[in-house]
């Protein structure tokens, strides 16, 4: 089976945006965190499973309309690099902000 590698990058970007949203929203909204906890017994397990599901669903959907063009593949990887660094920094920045404000 030939994998659409352009779709892989786009799906990763979508799942990273989903991860950042879930992390921040679950910290700000206690009932959302409770829903995540009730899903699997711990919110972190739910987030781990959900990110895989979002990644797989995104890939399944995007592979039908994202063209796997050789000329644009490197641009998608650079976009993925950008979103990875951004996701990392937003998660770190959020917890620093929460720590400074709550202690």
């Amino acid at each position: 089976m030939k994998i659409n590698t352009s779709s892989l990058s786009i799906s990763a970007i979508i799942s990273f945006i989903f991860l950042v949203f879930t992390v921040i929203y679950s910290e700000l909204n206690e009932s959302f965190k409770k829903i995540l906890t009730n899903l699997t017994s711990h919110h972190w397990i739910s987030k781990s499973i959900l990110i895989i599901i979002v990644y797989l669903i995104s890939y399944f959907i995007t592979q039908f309309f994202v063209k796997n063009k050789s000329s644009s593949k490197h641009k998608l990887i650079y976009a993925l690099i950008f979103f990875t660094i951004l996701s990392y920094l937003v998660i770190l920045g959020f917890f620093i902000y929460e720590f400074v404000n709550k202690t």
Partner: protein
Amino acid sequence: MVSSLIGIHAASGEIGSILFLWVFIELLNSNEQRINRAKKVALFGFLSFILSWIIGGYYYLTTYANIIKPLIKESTNSYAHLIVMETKEHAFLLLPILSCIIFCILKNDSKEILKNNKYRKSLLFLSLLTFLIGMSMAFMGYLISAAARFALEVKLL
């Protein structure tokens, strides 16, 4: 309190990170043989991260959350949980996906990587980023362990 699980978690995570440094080096000056080797190394790197994810998650839920977390939160180094651990447990989720993508690209587009220099360079930077994020996880793990040891020493004295 010392668990072998934390050792396996840290070792598999660090091995995974170093394997992506290896992928980076193979991609610096690639040929068919090096791409084939990078493919195998990336697969082992991906599997190492999966192992680290499962073992670390199990340790977090069974030991860290019940024993270590309250100890650190009560100590003067509460930042080790509230900033470092919170960031680590969530940012780690980036690694299995990044490593899976690198492996899939090496497996599917090996000929394209050799022909297209821009594509090879972008994959080079993605491998380096995976290595750096992995090493930042190791550094965070060190901070958390140090904070736990410190909190325990204070409690014992």
